[in-house]
């Protein structure tokens, strides 16, 4: 790894937010700014491999109250690539296990002098609660089924890098929309940039209310497949379901798994995405996951880029 020289970033739109809590509340210009800065940082770090000291001396605390591998490591690497220090916190064996509320735990970590709290929690809205209670920047790394803004951004960044645009594309989010924070982040981010969004899955996982909000609702993947430029295949969130929303995994896979037969019905340049972790054989077969249309590993690399952008922009936002 080499130490890169200082770089000058172009910020196309004035960024004023000290927190990144969701994509629903961001404007299209703000989303484009995050994507543009992410592109620049990816380039400046040689594909997110090298270090640049834009945020040297600052500290990022990862407060994860839910298990995570890729997001936690991605945020840690993003902070380190920008020269910041990191503090890792897990709820297991922590003060929350002794009865302390997560707000008090977060305040304690903040008192150690951190500049960002990156938080993941099983309950929607917890980053919003922390943003009211803390003075440092708060970045949402996933709050229950509500939102996962950096995941949405990395998905959109990956699409834009391949297609050069978002506007006018048809993107289908397939699977467990009801319990997916990735779905919600994508829905808002993509629609604000002009994509046509389809949410697809069984009615027990895809509410008709999405239609009332202006999104296309589909329950038959084979019918919409020929129109799609991008398929984002979402994992079934068994851990968040109180009752099984379909009869069996076998039946679900039969109806919704992206496989070789279905690839034959798709556009020749379709992009296959998955936020991971992927369940091979459930929402995607190995041939498709590892096939030429899959950009799953590029998504992972872009995750570091957008998290660098989020850290950089929030840290430099004016304190009101």
């Amino acid at each position: 790894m080499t130490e890169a020289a200082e770089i000058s970033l172009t910020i196309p739109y004035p960024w004023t937010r000290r927190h990144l809590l969701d994509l629903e509340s961001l404007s299209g210009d703000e989303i484009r700014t995050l994507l543009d800065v992410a592109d620049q940082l990816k380039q400046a770090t040689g594909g997110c491999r090298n270090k640049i000291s834009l945020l040297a001396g600052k500290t990022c605390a990862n407060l994860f109250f839910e298990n995570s591998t890729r997001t936690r490591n991605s945020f840690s690497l993003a902070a380190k690539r920008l020269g910041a220090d990191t503090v890792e916190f897990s709820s297991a064996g922590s003060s929350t296990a002794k009865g302390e509320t997560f707000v008090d735990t977060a305040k304690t970590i903040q008192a150690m002098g951190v500049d960002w709290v990156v938080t993941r929690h099983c309950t929607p809205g917890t980053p919003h609660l922390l943003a009211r209670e803390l003075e440092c920047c708060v970045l949402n790394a996933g709050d229950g089924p509500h939102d996962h803004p950096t995941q949405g951004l990395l998905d959109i960044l990956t699409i834009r890098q391949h297609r050069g645009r978002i506007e006018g594309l048809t993107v289908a989010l397939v699977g467990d929309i009801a319990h997916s924070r990735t779905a919600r982040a994508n829905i808002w981010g993509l629609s604000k940039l002009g994509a046509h969004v389809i949410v697809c899955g069984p009615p027990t996982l895809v509410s008709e209310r999405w239609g009332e909000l202006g999104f296309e609702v589909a329950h038959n993947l084979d019918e919409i497949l020929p129109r799609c430029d991008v398929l984002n295949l979402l994992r079934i969130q068994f851990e968040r379901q109180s009752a099984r929303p379909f009869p069996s995994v076998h039946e679900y896979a039969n109806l919704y798994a992206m496989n070789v037969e279905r690839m034959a019905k798709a556009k020749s340049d379709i992009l296959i995405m998955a936020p991971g972790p992927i369940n091979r054989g459930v929402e995607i077969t190995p041939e498709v996951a590892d096939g030429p249309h899959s950009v799953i590993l590029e998504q992972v690399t872009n995750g570091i880029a957008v998290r660098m952008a989020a850290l950089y922009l929030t840290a430099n936002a004016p304190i009101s």
Partner: protein
Amino acid sequence: MSESLLITGGRLIDPANQIDRVASILLVDGMVASIDPKDVSADVRTIDATGKIVSPGFIDLGVEFREPGFEEDETIASGSAAALAGGFTSVLCCSSTQPCIDSPGAVEFVRQKAVQAGGVRVHVIGCLSKNRDGDQLAELGLLYEAGAVAYSDAPRPITNDALLKRALEYARMFNLPIINRPNVMSLSKGGVMHDGQVALVLGLTGLPTEAEDLAVARDVRIAEATGGRLHIGPVSTMGAVDLIRRVKDRGIPITASVCPHSLCLDDSELRSFDARFKVHPPLRSRRHIETLQAAVADGTIDAIQSGHMPRAREKKMNDLDVSPFGSASLETTLSTVATFMLSVSDMNWSKVISRLSTAPARIAGVQGGCLSVGTIADVTIIDPDVKWTVRGTDFRSRCPSTPLDGHELTARVVMTIVGGKVCFDHS
């Protein structure tokens, strides 16, 4: 020695006696002695209520005072103080305590604590089932003899169909109402807010309206079959209102109530993810609110109950899944109703007082609810024009959590008189 109090110059509104005019009222020895008395001794204490409304004291059909067991949320003393500040002269106290109120001894405990607290009349709602487990009937007869005025497992709904039927049949012996909160638990399990577009967007588990509608349908059918006294409340959905209206049209004597928060704020408040908006029944969509408002105005919904479910500050300072349902609402009920309901078609001050006082007295079968000569002197005086801003931290209740925090409301209770004694004076 007799104690007398003369209230002069106020707009006396007594829906039970169809009075709405400027009049004086004389209270002697805890009773209403006369309206517009002719000869009053000069040394009688006089309260000038000019510009104010003088009404029968408010009666709440279901508050939680949380003692014994959860004194960090509310005690009978702090709850009583909150009730008085809200203009309530009588409250029916739910059994959300530990131990619950399923024995004569438990009833007596609440009554004794209420006497010590002084002021508001605290009536006891006895448990409908033993230990509130929803399985076997509690000793309804012994609870009646101990002074219980109604039966309920509230805020827990009675989910056992057979138990509800048995209770409605059995309780006819004592002519006490059974109060049930309509909720099919298997449909609402895990829900934290109204199941609508906002919940969908926020990724929060919803409380579907069907859970309430289905429960109301079941309850009214069993009430009709048994002839028992059933009060449904609080309700919050269009479907519940529709069912109640149709059943009443058939002459079935059920009654229903609604909470003030269901008449004003909608589910979009939860976009802040602030637990003070996590209340039960949940804040629903605007269409439900408008339906409920109309139902209060036309009498389909008989009564307004505060929905006072106090929870300690530390319990509400948490994420939405963990934070309990509830808020303090005794001190804002009148103002909320006045602010949000008086602009509704066919609504007026007489109906407001009827829903807060006259109807609850009739439903619960307790004294009060009118200013007839010879009845108990429970009186609430209201300033109808004053504007004030809600600050939960100023509440007498131990719970500072309210969905109305920061809202400017119109009208406020300025004096509460129980048994002829001034127990709350805002001045």
